[in-house]
């Protein structure tokens, strides 16, 4: 039984491993954070959020200040998919962002059918109004 945890991650409940949903790579034990099996890149935020105002002229440019914040990009080491981003204060330890209770997860899914395609959820549709 595998549980789809995020857009790019699933947990194999039998092996208790994080897996990449894009390339099926086994990332690492689900007893620890998936980030521990990722590649990390320390991105200058100006590369993603380009200055709209001329940085030569102005203190504030629409870009984040790279001395104040960085973007940590987490890549699957096998396929290079960007699994998560983290806007982080320079030097702040990366967050253990998802820490599932594996026995509880197993017990919960023991009562469910395996879900192989993500459940998207209902769309918001215009109300048809009241009529007879």
């Amino acid at each position, binding site marked *: 039984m595998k549980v789809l*945890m*995020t857009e790019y991650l699933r947990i194999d409940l039998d092996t208790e491993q994080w897996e990449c949903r894009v390339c099926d790579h086994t990332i690492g034990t689900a007893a620890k954070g998936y980030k521990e099996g990722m590649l*990390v890149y320390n991105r200058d935020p100006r590369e993603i*959020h*380009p200055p*709209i105002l001329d940085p030569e002229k102005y203190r504030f440019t629409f870009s984040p200040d790279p001395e104040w914040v960085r973007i940590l990009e987490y890549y699957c080491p096998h396929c290079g998919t960007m699994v998560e981003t983290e806007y982080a204060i320079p030097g702040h*330890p990366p967050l253990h962002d998802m820490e*599932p*209770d594996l026995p509880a997860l197993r017990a919960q899914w023991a009562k469910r059918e395996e879900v192989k395609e993500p459940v998207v959820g209902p769309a918001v549709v215009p109300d048809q109004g009241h009529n007879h």
Partner: protein
Amino acid sequence: MSEMNTPVTAKTPSPEEVALIKKFLNDTTLFLGPDPEIMQNHDLMPRTEMEDECMRKVGDAHTIAKIRDRIQAGCDEGYEMVEQMGAAPGAKWGDVITGVYSASGDLAIASAGGVLIFSALVHHPIKFIIKNWVNEPTVGVREGDGFIHNDSRYGNVHNTDQSMILPIFHKGKLVCWVASTVHEGENGAIEPGGMPSMAESPCDEGLKMCPFKVVENYQIKRDILTFLQNSVREPKLQYEDMKVKLFACLRIKQRIEETLNTDGPEALISTLRTTMENVRAEVKRRVSQWPDMTVRTYIIQDSTLRENCVVKINCKLTKTGDRLIFDFRGSSPEFTNRPTNTIVAGLKGMLAQVFLCYVWPDLPRGQAAFAPIEVITDPHSIVNCSYDAPNSQSLMSIFTGFTAGQHAVAKFLYSCPEKYTKVHAPTFNMINTFIWGGVSQHGETLGNLCADLNGMGAGARSDLDGEHGLAPIFATMADIGEQELNEEDVPFLQLVSKKMTRDAIAPGKYRGGQGYTMIAATKDSEQWGFMTTCQGAKIPPIQGLFGGYACGCYPLSKVKGIDVYDILLNEPHKFKHSIEEIMNEQPFEEATYTTHHMGMGFEISKRGELFMISQGAGAGYGDLLERDPAGVIRDIEEGLISPGVAERLYKVKFDPATLAVNQEATAAARDAERKDRIARGVPYAEFIKTWNKPTPPSHLQYFGCWGDDVAKLYMGSPDKFRDANTPRPNYMVHPKDVRIAELEARLHALGAMGGEKQ
């Protein structure tokens, strides 16, 4: 003296003595301040004997549903009245709630539209009235009475919000309450509009109305009204909206009385209690469907609105069985003299909004939807401030708290097969708009804001881009209003309005909805000014989701030394319709061009000077290399992103003239980028060896915990901190004093102080 110093075993008082001490303290209370017993509790009051008896007598689901629908329609009718007749801009865009409360003060059924943050925090003032005024001989609660309230330390979001509260009696017995609450705006604070960012203590925040009686025999008391009118900048609005709220309450009262006449008080009381208990039980059932897990996130505020600094909102969300616990410990300590603190009820209200608008929008509106969800905070923190701290800009902390909650919740929802909405990246969370005030072209004294605060860009969803300029996070059904109508009343124009700000993007597989540009200039008054109250000019105030990016940053730009109306008349070709062109090309020769963070204190604007800002983008969802190239081209065609930025980020190859996509070249470029990622990425264990630091960086004023050590809260530098459970004052220096000190240091270094005596 020696006898007094001899330790003695303390005597344990008997139950009679405890009762006597309690009576003595109650009888001699000198000040009924905000009551933590009321303000810290967001759960439903215990079921009363009366409610129990009524539920035994009337339990038929059809009868309950019929009465609930009837009361709901009455609440919506009252809401409509306030929205249509209210004078405050907030009323017009639906910054309103009307509701029916149980006799114990719980909000049982609320209006369906408008600002749902209210659903979790308008009940506190009624509980204050019940606790303190019902049996107080000098006040009392009688048929025909009405109570007013705005002080957020006693309930509601912030001091701009005013409530009118009426007890409803049936045959002399209190059966429920009705109330109407509106974001009125102006409240006599040190800056116009009711949300002063310059407030350094609660005394700077204007009217402080704890709940008190202002209506008797359904008539507004003129002496108190006149006092209130003298206390604010908009005396006519104060009167008009008190009347509007009173009559909305009376309409709801009429609908309740119709129900009492047809079905009797037991049916009404049973309906109110059953509705709340059913919603509460359903929330616990839905939570139980989520995975048992802990999710951690943090959101950074990059200013106090007075100065840039780094303020952490720390959030650990844990779900166990049917319990859901928001743990905000580790968030910044409260600021003693800055107004970005919030009362904890405000944080809870915004978290309720996450569920009522973005997770379970089908649930009946009321207090019960958030009642079973738990919230933990540090005392005297920015998300649970003391009653001595200013909180007039609490929006900064409740909005970033909301985003932390929204970001964490999304990570639970993905794997849950039972969904009521799509998984959603964080929506933009700052009120990027102009707050304004002064004397209008008609000689009226005004103070309020542009409804553009409601144009926040929405976060992307798991299968869709985010919507542009959609709605505020505190009211998904609110409107951005008609600027042209507003301009009939105020002496300024938005020369550019609702034009998307190009390249202010949040990329992803599905990109965030973008924000639009606003360029405002005063025209017909010499006594008019603006302020802006937002964070996020140096650090984005949201996070991306599942590989999507957050938004960028949003500064304030000013152009001074010109009269743009003369330019439009005589040299119209010089005017440009984007901040980018005006600031980079500097087309007006005599002008000065400056940029600032978005915490502009109230500033008088001269005719024709430009104040320029942009609304923000919601966060992106997923890896941007998976974005459909057709979607990237559509964004170029719609002016959301420039071709060069699109090609560089999304690795889409296209003909610059026709924008036709070269699919093969795009696939190759994306493959190459994935390989580049693998080449440049560093294994986690290696990465943290150089990245992780034991303390916050010394070049930043940092507030809050560092890493997972939530017991230690930093207060501006690596060597200044407090124990999380031991509050300490946290004063900020006036930004002008900071600047003067910097300049004096430079003069000293140059030997240019001229021997000035100290």
